[in-house]
Structures are given as structure tokens and as C-alpha cells.
């Protein structure tokens, strides 16, 4: 019952019902008008014939007086055909004609009317009354003449036609209803299939897909779209699951370490100095855990698009120069040469703090992993470059470290992914994920390239037009890695200048 109900209230059924009803109203109107007009036309033709006949009788009356009229009425009445005649004397008696009596409802002023009569010659009670149309006129001597025609056949023809039309309308109505029913049952069946599938998906089976019939119709296309959406959801969910697993691993490990060290301290016979040591270590561990948490939350916020309220025009060249200046002493202390090359302002719309964080992460990464491993390669060098090229602002940070094999480069951007050999370095494995998330938020991209040797990280952001009036003078600065390497340092400075002018040329 509910199935039938849901079928009746279904959209296709309701729509076909509405279509059917309006169709029926229109067809009914047209058919009715047609019948009425046909009847009218036939009747008026009959009346015209009658009027002509009446005129003929009048003529005869004028020529031969009442006698001739009586004679010709009698003749016509006996002549067969479907003419009906009656001549009544002024007092009411019958003079001539083939009708038994004058119909009552007839006016005598020459107007036309319909009346019923018993066919002459038939047995009165057995015969059916027939329909006729007639005109009666008063003749000059006071007698009344009625001329009529039998229109029973016309009536029957029209009644038959009406029956046929009504039947066909009924048939159309039935076919329409049945069609609507079948149509809505088919559509409802497919929609129910989608609903059942989505119920199973809600039940937890994300691998479920909506069945398609491959016809390419709108429901099939909808199914394709929904399947695409499901695929994306499944990917997101599995990514989230992976992140959860990572969190479980990367946060539980330090938590466990923290717990172990506290436990060990409690067992330590030295007492207070051991406690103090353990507590200090605990605070350090807690701080690093907090940092990891913050980084994770930032990434989540960035990826959800919730951040980004503080977008302003940011000149990346200024930003990178400041960060370069910020990290220069660190690089120097680490024995790494760092240099910057830039080429006029590179303005983007962005969040200064987030972009600063992204660039800082890249520089810190280079500081951490940029030490040359190849013998004889000299001290590592980090090159930071900002340029504005083809509507894109590009920041790249290259190092001369071991680099990352091509097949691993995509992976290191994922959360918590730390390659073998880097696990000994401090860090959460979230730095590059954060950079990628920041790039994404700004409508940009982040990629890792081969610096041959070493790794080059490139952050590209959609640029705004450079402000006019700013000089586009390239400048290069280099910091030498200590006094022992000052010769090398100056050599690199030249490299940097050449490189900068090279880039400038390509930009034009």
C-alpha cells in the first residue's frame, strides 16, 4: 500500500496526471465544440430547405387559393420522403397532411422549432417518437401550415459520433494513467536503487557505488556524478584514516617516551636531581608535542579553507629578504653558504604570516638537510630565489644536500612522512605538508625538483601586477660560510649575479 502511495505522490506520476488532465480538458473542449457546430450546421440546412418549401406553398396559395394549397399539401404528404406536413383550419381541425395532429409546442409566426412525432402509418403505441424540425406559418385565410423534416437520423449520427469520441477520450485517459504509472514506477525504481545504495554507504561501506545502466540519460549522468563524489569522499576518508594512524603513531611515540622518562626518574635512587632532570625533559617533550599539534591543527584549518581572513597585498621579495636576513646567521653558523637572488617586487595576495611560515619552513628544511654529502663537493650552499614570471610569483629554495629521489618527492609532502635518515633530525614531518597547504590556500602550487645535486623546493603563487615605480634592479647577496671559505663565497656571489641576470632575461 505504501508502495502504491509513494508511487502516486511521486513526481513523474503527478506530472503525467497533470499533463493528462489538461490534455483531456482541451480534447473535451474541441470535441464538444465540433459536435455542437456540426449539429447546428445540419439543422440550419434542414431549416433552409423547409423555408424554401414553405415559400413554394405560399406561391401556390397565391395562384390557386386554399384548394390548391390543400391539394399540394396532400400530394406532398403522400409523396414519401422525409417531409412532414400539416394544414390546420382556423378552428383547429385537420385539413390535410401526413401528420396526425399538430404538435403543441409550435409557434405559428413563422419561427422554427423542434418537435416530436409518431411516424405516420405506424401503430401508434408501438412506434417510437421521432425528432423533427419544423416551421409553421399562418396562411391568409387563417389556417395554419406546418412543414417539417425528420431529423432523427441526424440526431442518431451525432449521438454515435459523441459516443465514439467519449470512448476515445476514456481510452486516452486510461493509456495516460497507465503510462504515468509505468514511467514513475521505472524512475522510482532507479531512484530507490540509488537510495538503497546510499543507505548502504551510510551504513559504512564506502566502496559501494551506484549502479548505472550506461544509457547516458539524466539519471545515468546523475549516478556518474554521485559516484565521482563518492570516490572523492572515499579518498578523503581514507586520507583521514591514514592521518589518524599517523597521529596515533607520531604522537603516541613521544607520549610514551615522556611517560617512560618520568617512570624512570621515579625509580632513580638519586632522588631530587633525577626528578628535576626528568621534569625538564618532560617540559621539552611536551613543548615539541604542542608544536606538532599546532602544526596539525594549522594544516587542518588551511585545508578546510577556514583560514584566509587576513589576505592583503604581500611583496614576496620583501618577505623573502627579511627571512633571508633572519636565517643568514644561522646558515653561517651551520657552515652553509646562503644567497638570495631577486628581481624586483613580486606582489601576491596572501596572508603575510602564513607565507612567511611557508618560506621559513623551506629555508629551515634546507638548513637541516642541505649539507653536502658528496665528497669534495665543498660546503653546502642554499640559494633562495624570488621571481615574478608569467603572472606567477615563484619562490624557490635550493640546496646541495643529498636531495630526494624522484619517486619519493610526492610522498614527503604528506603528513608525518619522514624519509629514512631524516628521522634522526628533530622535526615533526609536517613542515612540507604545511607549505603545501599554505600554497593551496593561496591558489598556488608547491613542488619539489632536482637541483642536481640537491633538492629545490618551488612555491608558486598567482601574482598581482607589480607596483609601478619600483626598481627592477637585480641584486644578489651572499654570505660566506666562515672566513676559510671566503674565496668560494665570492665565487658564488658571481654565480648568483650571472644566474640572476639569466633569469631576468628569461622573464622578458
Amino acid at each position, binding site marked *: 500500500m505504501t508502495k502504491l502511495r509513494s508511487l502516486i505522490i511521486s513526481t513523474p506520476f503527478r506530472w503525467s496526471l497533470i499533463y493528462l488532465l489538461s490534455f483531456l480538458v482541451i480534447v473535451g473542449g474541441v470535441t464538444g465544440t465540433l459536435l455542437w457546430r456540426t449539429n447546428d450546421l445540419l439543422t440550419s440546412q434542414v431549416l433552409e430547405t423547409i423555408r424554401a418549401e414553405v415559400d413554394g406553398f405560399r406561391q401556390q396559395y397565391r395562384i390557386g387559393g386554399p384548394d390548391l394549397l390543400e391539394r399540394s399539401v396532400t400530394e406532398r404528404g403522400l409523396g414519401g420522403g422525409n417531409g412532414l406536413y400539416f394544414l390546420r383550419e382556423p378552428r383547429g381541425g385537420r385539413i390535410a397532411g401526413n401528420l396526425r395532429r399538430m404538435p403543441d409546442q409550435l409557434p405559428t409566426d413563422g419561427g422554427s422549432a423542434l418537435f416530436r412525432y409518431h411516424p405516420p402509418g405506424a401503430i401508434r403505441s408501438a412506434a417510437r417518437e421521432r425528432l423533427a424540425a419544423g416551421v409553421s406559418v399562418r396562411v391568409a385565410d387563417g389556417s395554419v401550415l406546418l412543414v417539417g423534416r425528420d431529423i432523427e437520423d441526424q440526431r442518431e449520427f451525432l449521438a454515435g459520433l459523441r459516443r465514439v469520441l467519449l470512448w476515445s477520450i476514456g481510452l486516452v485517459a486510461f493509456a495516460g494513467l497507465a503510462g504515468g504509472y509505468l514511467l514513475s514506477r521505472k524512475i522510482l525504481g532507479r531512484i530507490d536503487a540509488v537510495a538503497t545504495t546510499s543507505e548502504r554507504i551510510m551504513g559504512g561501506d564506502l566502496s559501494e557505488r551506484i549502479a548505472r545502466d550506461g544509457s547516458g540519460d539524466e539519471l545515468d549522468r546523475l549516478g556518474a556524478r554521485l559516484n565521482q563524489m563518492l570516490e572523492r569522499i572515499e579518498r578523503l576518508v581514507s586520507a583521514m584514516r591514514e592521518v589518524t594512524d599517523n597521529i596515533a603513531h607520531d604522537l603516541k611515540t613521544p607520549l610514551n617516551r615522556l611517560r617512560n622518562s618520568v617512570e624512570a626518574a621515579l625509580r632513580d635512587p638519586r632522588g631530587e636531581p633525577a626528578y628535576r632532570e626528568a621534569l625538564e625533559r618532560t617540559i621539552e617533550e611536551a*613543548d615539541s608535542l*604542542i608544536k606538532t599539534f599546532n602544526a596539525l591543527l594549522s594544516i587542518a584549518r588551511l585545508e578546510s579553507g577556514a583560514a584566509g581572513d587576513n589576505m592583503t597585498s604581500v611583496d614576496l621579495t620583501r618577505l623573502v629578504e627579511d627571512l633571508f636576513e*633572519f636565517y643568514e646567521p644561522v646558515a653561517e653558523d651551520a657552515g652553509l653558504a646562503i644567497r638570495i637572488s631577486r628581481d624586483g617586487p613580486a606582489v601576491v595576495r596572501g596572508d603575510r604570516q602564513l607565507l612567511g611560515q611557508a618560506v621559513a619552513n623551506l629555508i629551515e628544511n634546507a638548513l637541516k638537510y642541505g649539507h653536502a654529502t658528496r665528497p669534495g663537493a665543498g660546503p653546502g650552499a642554499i640559494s633562495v630565489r624570488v621571481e615574478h614570471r608569467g603572472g606567477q610569483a615563484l619562490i624557490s629554495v635550493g640546496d646541495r644536500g643529498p636531495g630526494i629521489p624522484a619517486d619519493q618527492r610526492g610522498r614527503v609532502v604528506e603528513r608525518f612522512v619522514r624519509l629514512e635518515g631524516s628521522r634522526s633530525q628533530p622535526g615533526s614531518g609536517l613542515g612540507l605538508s604545511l607549505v603545501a597547504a599554505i600554497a593551496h590556500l593561496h591558489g598556488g602550487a608547491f613542488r619539489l625538483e632536482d637541483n642536481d645535486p640537491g633538492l629545490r623546493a618551488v612555491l608558486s603563487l598567482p601574482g598581482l601586477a607589480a607596483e609601478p615605480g619600483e626598481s627592477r634592479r637585480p641584486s644578489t647577496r651572499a654570505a660566506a660560510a666562515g672566513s676559510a671559505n671566503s674565496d668560494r663565497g665570492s665565487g658564488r656571489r658571481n654565480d648568483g649575479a650571472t644566474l640572476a641576470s639569466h633569469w631576468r632575461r628569461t622573464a622578458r
Partner: protein
Amino acid sequence: MRVLVIEDDSETAAFLQKSLKESGHTADTAGDGDTGLVMARTASYDVLIVDRMLPKRDGLSLITALREAGDRTPALILSALGEVDDRVKGLRAGGDDYLAKPYSYTELLARVEALARRAAPEESETTYIVGDLVLDRLSHKVTRAGTPVLLQPREYRLLEYLMKYAGQVVTRTMLLENVWDYHFDPQTNVIDVHISRLRAKIDKSFDRALLHTIRGAGYMIRDET
């Protein structure tokens, strides 16, 4: 220094009250926004510590209400929301500093003391003097025992900030935020490197060191004699 702690978590409030007392300050506590507002307006405090999410009246609207009433008592906002745009909202509402939870007590204390100093009238000083180290804020010249010290612009700003809060602990995060305007955590010891460069310029060739490292907290510039 008299501090009002407006914090709905009673354990945190008690911890802050106890710690501030140990640091030589007095502290009152309020458990919700309305009580906090009434207390802040009736008594006079040097610094307010306001939790961002409070029952009855949230921290930001409390500070806005105070500022509208003309009360300029420095306020430090504590919040579990550590994002940059949240801190911008906090400062826009009239807060003077913003500290994300979880924070370390040393960080909080350093910031509270800096806030109290900021409100003091010496703000308009044109010369900072610590021992024989003199920083002239008008000419941007620095001398130690009469000898000029040549500083890079950023080094000058670092020293200026340290000297402004002379005798007080300044944390690495405070330096990062106020000298460089960076609101993110570097993973490396950048600040320490910059401090050691500055130290090489102002302390190296002198017997008495003025720039001290406070272990587990930050730095302090002070003439110890």
C-alpha cells in the same frame, strides 16, 4: 603588581594565582565574564589576564566593554585558538597581547610584566640606559662606555626591545613577535644566534656582561652591580 585573572577553569585560575604570588605579585580571580568586568571596573589592576572563552560574557566583549568605558588597563588574552587570525581579532577587540594555550608560565609571566611596563609612563623615554650601555632612540646611536657600537638595523631593534624591558625576562617568542613580527615557531635556534651576534657586539670586549640568558625562559638585559 596587581593582576586580575579572569578564567573559568578554577584549577588554571588557582595555578596562576599561586604562581603570580610566588613571583611577587598579587592576583585576584574571577570565574566568569560578568564578575570579571565588575571587578576590573571597581578595583584598579596593573594587568588583566583574560581567557577568551568565558561563561556569561566572552573575553573579547569584556575587553571591548572596558575600552569603551575608557579603561586602558593592559589585557593579555589567553586562548585555545592559536591561529593568526584569532590573535588579530583579539588585538582588534582591544587586547594588548595574545597567548595561545597551552602556554608556559615563564612565557605568561614575562608577557604580563612587559605589559605592566608598557603601561608605565617611561614609555616616552628617548634614551635607554643599562649600566654603561646607552641607546639613543632619536639618533639611533648606541654606545658602550662611551665607545660607539655599530649595529645592523635589525640588531638595533633587538637591542631597543631588550633595553625597553631592561631587568625583565624577554622570551624568544616575544622577540620573534615584536622585533621581527613573525607569529610562527621556527624549528631552529634562530633567536639564539641573533642574540649571540648582538652579544658579540655589546658585551664581548667588556668585563661585565649585560645581556644574560635566563635558562628555560629567555633573555634579560641588566646591570648586575
